[in-house]
């Protein structure tokens, strides 16, 4: 295991900082410090990840390594449930930023065959990613918690395209019509989708924590209870009332935008 880092000047002692998210080199391990030639240091960028299981870090580094040797790229970003605590992910979301067209399915296949884990690969140009971040709250949430090979530029300003938001919101209507038959996780995802769009429209910061806090405030239910399907009629009533009111607002604003265009 090798980590490259710089010596920082301290008051009484100088120090070397190393990332908490690393494989091996546990606190208490004796290490040898030797000078090396200054060169461009390649280090991944972690966004809002306090802790990551070492084996997941290994998977991430392997994904970066495979893609680097396979195709051109401007950036490689890993997002999604892999980065949540535990091992409840069904696949790994990989975002490949590249100006040239690539064979997504081929890259996906190669990653899956090498890692033996389902991969969901999305290819975008830099321009497409910027547009997605401007209009789609789901993309902003994805990148809010991610690991990227190169630094991700600051988030662009939001651009409220109400018709687009309406299209994304419509699936959350399923919770009203089919609540008895949906699993807890499905209910949680539909609620999360609705609240993400709500926070986006209200220009609030999008993060998993903010969304879950808003779910608790609006519907008086914790996300864990929702995921475990511990809900009652009161939740469905509150959800329906909120959905219908917010839907009205979205459609009204979408129609206004259509007339203005």
């Amino acid at each position, binding site marked *: 295991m090798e980590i490259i880092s710089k010596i920082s000047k301290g008051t009484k002692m100088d120090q070397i900082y190393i990332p908490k998210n690393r494989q091996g080199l546990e606190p208490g391990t004796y290490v040898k410090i030797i000078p090396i030639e200054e060169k461009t240091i390649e280090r991944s960028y972690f966004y809002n990840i306090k802790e990551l299981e070492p084996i997941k870090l290994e998977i991430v580094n392997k994904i970066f390594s495979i893609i680097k040797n396979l195709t051109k790229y401007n950036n490689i970003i890993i997002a999604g449930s892999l980065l949540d605590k535990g091992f409840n992910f069904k696949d790994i979301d990989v975002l490949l930023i590249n100006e040239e067209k690539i064979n997504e399915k081929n890259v996906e296949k190669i990653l899956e065959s090498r890692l033996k884990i389902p991969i969901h690969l999305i290819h975008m140009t830099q321009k497409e990613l910027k*547009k997605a971040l401007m209009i*789609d709250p789901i993309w902003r949430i994805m990148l809010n918690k991610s690991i990227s090979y190169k630094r991700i530029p600051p988030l662009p300003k939001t651009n409220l*395209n109400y018709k*687009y938001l309406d*299209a994304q919101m419509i699936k959350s209507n*399923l919770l009203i019509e*089919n609540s008895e038959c949906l699993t807890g996780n499905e209910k949680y995802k539909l609620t999360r989708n609705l609240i993400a769009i709500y926070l986006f429209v209200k220009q609030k910061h999008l993060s998993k924590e903010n969304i879950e806090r808003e779910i608790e405030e609006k519907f008086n239910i914790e996300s864990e209870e929702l995921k475990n399907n511990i809900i009652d009629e009161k939740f469905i009533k509150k959800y329906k009332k909120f959905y219908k009111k917010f839907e009205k607002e979205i459609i009204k604003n979408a*129609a206004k935008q259509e007339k203005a265009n």
Partner: protein
Amino acid sequence: MPQNRKKLIDLFIGHISEAVSHEILIRSTENKEIASHYKKELENLLDRSKKYREKINPKNSSLPEKDIDYIKTKIIIKVKTELKKRISLGYKNIDLGLIEILVDKFLKEAKIS
């Protein structure tokens, strides 16, 4: 039809209706290329609808004509209601002609017809 089977069919109808409405609305925006990058959500809707389909008899062949007609009609009515509400308020570029095309496509993928 037995209550449980009807419930499964209604669930199936609900999911396909939302998938069709979502798809037509997205196509009417200028942001098709962005939404297509996150078609995982549409795939999830369709995958869930297929799970309900797998519980509806007959499982390994098309459903009876009567059931296909019922399902198709219900989906078309639901989607038309959602989209016409929006058109009446001023939405543009919504292609209602796509409804039947997408419904047929999704029903075929789900082995309903």
